[in-house]
């Protein structure tokens, strides 16, 4: 065992010297390789973190939401639908929600206006999300003037700024009283935006949804599991989209690596020939080249992964912010929580280190099994 390890170390010494003989070529390869790993790892870590956070945070969202559809589009739901739903076994509570969007031309941002059920807000008062507060430069006691649906200016006094800890879900929220909401949007008194149903047993939700669809055919139920699945799909999709976009860069790298590995230069062929002529066995040459590939790919993985970790969890994935933000003005300030999936990291390790190491060995094997004299010529 000791002999084996000593032998591998000598081969590694030789491989590293061989890499150091062409520093420019190998350093540039290491740089590009590390960059590819960095990008792939950043996307993976960021989407995994958001996916987990969404699953945890939205785990207590309403079990069932009932929306009314008119001609395939979302419409306001009449309040008498609450009576029409009647008593459904398994439903512990039902109530209408009032919420909507407001485009503020002053900062070109969309706000989500909502009437909360868990707190009392006085007439003419509002509570706002931290993102909205910083975008409009508002604090407690300040006034926010918005133009209503009838074109009249409405002045609201800010009585609280929502906890910045919850910015991921409340950045653009504007909470106000129900009467204010209806007056501001000229909202019909007998309508809600949608209806929330609280269900005690999660296994009954689907059955209840089926019953509601039969009783109220112009509605569609949205289940909590669908909300969670939506976010799983959103981040899976985003990750997939970014991977597709990155595929060009990955393919370019694969071609570069393959070209470097398969098209042995005359110098490398001569080196192999000399090594064989001085008594190296084919196995030794292969091991030496294996160490060369492993040194490069392991280093690239370590550099790429560690930089990606720092980028995502220390610098809040600053490079991806423009992609997520789009044209939005309000973007929540949040630092992703490092929900690192060991299996994903292992997969990344396997798919970045293993193929490169193998591609370097195959052409060397072909050169190493040929006669030294032929190789050197």
């Amino acid at each position: 065992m000791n002999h084996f390890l000593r032998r591998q170390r000598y081969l590694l010494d030789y491989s590293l010297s061989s890499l150091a003989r062409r520093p420019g070529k190998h350093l540039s390869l290491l740089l590009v390789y590390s960059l590819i790993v960095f990008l792939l790892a950043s996307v993976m870590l960021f989407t995994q973190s958001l996916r987990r956070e969404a699953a945890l945070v939205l785990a207590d969202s309403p079990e069932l939401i009932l929306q009314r559809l008119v001609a395939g589009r979302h419409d306001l739901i009449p309040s008498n639908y609450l009576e029409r739903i009647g008593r459904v076994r398994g439903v512990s509570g039902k109530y209408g929600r009032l919420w909507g969007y407001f485009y503020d031309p002053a900062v070109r941002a969309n706000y989500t206006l909502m009437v909360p059920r868990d707190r009392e807000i006085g007439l003419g008062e509002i509570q706002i999300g931290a993102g909205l507060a910083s975008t409009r430069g508002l604090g407690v006691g300040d006034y926010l003037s918005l133009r209503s649906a009838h074109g009249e200016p409405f002045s609201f006094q800010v009585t609280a700024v929502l906890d910045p800890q919850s910015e991921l879900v409340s950045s653009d929220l504007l909470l106000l009283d129900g009467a204010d909401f209806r007056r501001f949007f000229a909202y019909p008194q007998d309508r809600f935006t949608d209806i929330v149903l609280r269900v005690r047993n999660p296994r009954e939700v689907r059955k209840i949804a089926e019953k509601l669809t039969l009783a109220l055919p112009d509605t569609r139920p949205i289940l909590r599991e669908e909300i969670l699945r939506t976010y799983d799909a959103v981040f899976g999709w985003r990750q997939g989209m970014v991977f597709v976009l990155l595929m060009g860069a990955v393919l370019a790298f694969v071609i570069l690596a393959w070209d470097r590995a398969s098209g042995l230069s005359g110098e490398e062929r001569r080196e192999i020939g000399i090594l064989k002529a001085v008594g190296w066995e084919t196995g030794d040459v292969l091991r030496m080249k294996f160490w060369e590939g492993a040194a490069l790919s392991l280093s690239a993985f370590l550099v790429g992964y560690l930089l990606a970790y720092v980028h995502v969890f220390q610098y809040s994935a600053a490079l991806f912010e423009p992609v997520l933000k789009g044209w939005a003005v309000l973007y929540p300030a949040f630092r992703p929580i490092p929900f690192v999936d060991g299996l994903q990291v292992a997969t990344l390790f396997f798919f970045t280190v293993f193929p490169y190491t193998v591609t370097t060995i195959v052409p060397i094997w072909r050169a190493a099994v040929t006669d030294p004299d032929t190789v050197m010529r």
Partner: protein
Amino acid sequence: MQARSLYDIGYPQRKSTSFLAWLCLGAVLVGLSFLHAAVTIRAETPAVAQRARFVANLDLTDLALFTEARYTRHPSQADLHSAFQDHPMALEHFPTGSLVPATASSAIRP
């Protein structure tokens, strides 16, 4: 007596020593990243629980990540045609809209 190489007497510094030291350092740093992740998750658990309570109290359904259009602000609530509100064959207007897929379909939903 067995011949000893310059490497064996410690001069010059073996390249493999530096490389193995770098590998060990990298492995330790990767290990530390997992440790950092575990510690941070533990520290952030109350904040996540608070966010979940906030969501439950206000009956929220979506993250406020993509606020540029209503169907990207609440992807779980938007109807399937929102992205094509201008014209059935219209190209997607908002940048994030091209990254947010249609909501997950189900047997119950139309």
